[in-house]
């Protein structure tokens, strides 16, 4: 066993996703503790060209799994062949990250953890902290003695903070080629763009989310103005996405995105458990709802009972005024 910490670094159009930079920060910290290297497994369009740039984030080595835009699962065979006997493999708790992590668990028969919001090392023993059973229990788990490595850990967004302004350089190599593997047979046969300016909600540090109470696309325009004033993004409950008011890319919750912003501001969202599991690790939760008994009032930090259509525009103006001051 080496003490290397591997992590998945997804690239889109030559740019590392924020998850890659967050995991670089986590892997670097864990590698300093374990005495190993922080190693990125880079994949996606432009990964080869962008790989060396990860050195500035403290990464020691980058292995490029592939440079094409294809289903994430198809990179899993190369990932499994590249992790050797590293100590830990970190993957973002996104659909793509989970696909590759899952394949590693199946191929290498290694333990799986997460999604976690805290990882600690005691010597070289991993302790992974996660909420389970819809957040009703917080568990800390570890690999059993003698379990194969690397331990696979799914990591929630914003668990680690990207390091800025480093000057290190990383050694870049290409993953060894892998013989035809059934997992590599999935292929994209059509690609459709519906939203020109979609944001990646998992990367937003401020989210203004709307639910059924927002009433329609016009209401989401109002939330959009507040989000812009706060420098944040708009999210939604499943009800709002099902109603077609916003695209599904903006859905937060069990079957949408799992987010961990520093501020989540929910408007007209009741706070059903399916939504709550997507945002319960937000650092600050503010809710505006006209129903004083809405479940979100039970777990928000600040709960304002009132009419969002009257409050939100005034709040937007107030924030603009204070920021301008």
């Amino acid at each position, binding site marked *: 066993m080496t003490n290397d910490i591997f992590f998945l670094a997804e690239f889109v159009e030559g740019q590392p996703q924020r998850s890659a930079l967050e995991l670089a920060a986590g892997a670097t910290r864990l590698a300093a503790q374990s005495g190993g290297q922080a190693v990125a497994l880079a994949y996606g369009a432009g990964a080869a060209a962008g790989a060396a740039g990860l050195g500035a984030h403290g990464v020691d080595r980058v292995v490029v799994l592939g440079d094409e835009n294809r*289903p994430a699962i198809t990179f899993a065979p190369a990932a499994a062949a590249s992790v050797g006997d590293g100590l830990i493999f970190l993957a973002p708790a996104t659909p793509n990250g989970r696909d*590759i992590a899952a394949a590693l668990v199946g191929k290498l028969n290694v333990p799986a953890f997460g999604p976690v919001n805290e990882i600690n090392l005691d010597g070289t023993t991993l302790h992974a902290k996660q909420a389970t*059973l819809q957040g009703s229990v917080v568990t800390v788990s570890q*690999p059993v003695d003698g379990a194969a490595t690397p331990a696979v850990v799914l990591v929630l967004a914003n668990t680690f903070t990207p390091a800025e302004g480093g000057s290190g350089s990383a050694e870049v190599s290409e993953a060894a080629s892998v013989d035809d593997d059934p997992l590599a047979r999935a292929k994209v046969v059509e690609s459709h763009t519906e939203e020109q300016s979609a944001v990646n909600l998992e990367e937003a540090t401020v989210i203004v989310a709307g639910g059924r109470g927002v009433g329609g696309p016009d209401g989401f325009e109002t939330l959009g103005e507040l989000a812009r004033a706060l420098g944040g993004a708009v999210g939604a409950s499943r009800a709002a996405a099902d109603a077609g008011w916003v695209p599904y890319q903006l859905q937060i919750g069990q079957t949408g995105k799992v987010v961990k912003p520093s501020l989540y501001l929910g408007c007209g969202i009741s706070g059903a458990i399916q939504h709550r599991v997507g945002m319960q690790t937000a650092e600050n939760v503010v809710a505006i709802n006209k129903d004083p008994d809405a479940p979100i009032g039970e777990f928000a930090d600040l709960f304002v009972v009132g009419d969002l259509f009257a409050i939100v525009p005034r709040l937007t*103006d107030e924030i603009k005024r*204070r920021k301008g001051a």
Partner: protein
Amino acid sequence: MKIVVCIKQVPATTADKRYEADLTLDRASVDTVINPLDEYAIEQALRLADAGKADQVVYLSMGPEQAAEALRRALAMGGDEAYLVTDAALSGADEWSTARVLASALDKLAPDVALMGMASDDARGSLVPGAVAAMRNVPLLSYGAELRLEDGVARIRRLNASGHDIIEAPMPLVASVTDQVGEPRYASLKGIMAAKRKPLETWGLSDIGLSADDLRPLTTVDSAEPPEAKPPTERVENVAPEEAATRIADWLAARKLI
């Protein structure tokens, strides 16, 4: 065309959960349901059967003996037969051991498509579909908002950052679907009666070629505790909108969020 839908019995969202001394959930004492996201996989399979794209829908579950109830409920929605893998050695199974059991049972059932929900309600790793695909050495199509089967090829529609992709792979394979495939049907009274006569077989580990030694979990729980109590919610009520907006802005400013 044979579809095997893998389903899990989970505690109902509202259920009071209790833990055993070894920090595993006491699954015998709680109200249970079919994992709600697995119902979408059932619905997708039944729609394919209704459309003549599948001629056999089979259910597979791993769990304690009472998980047979979940399989009966699934059979009441439709489908042909069900299999439950149950064994004392499976208590406290982690994602790896769950995947290992399902993969071995699927080897025996040999479906064209092994279909799963995108996540389970009681543990949210979503790793089982991909791990099963890797163990069985077949392709994975995951997070499908729709599954279509045509000419030996399966296709899913999957959200991407700005729209959606159509992704295809040759069968046999493992697929997982989201809650966008269509609302699960209710079991009719007729369906419930019919389900009682449908075959439901129970397998032990030896029936799928495994032993307890093959399934030692790879993870262990150090501690299980309720989440840290948050400070009580600050409530703002019965104030004019201007006042409410000012109070929110003050609250954000005090936390350096603006």
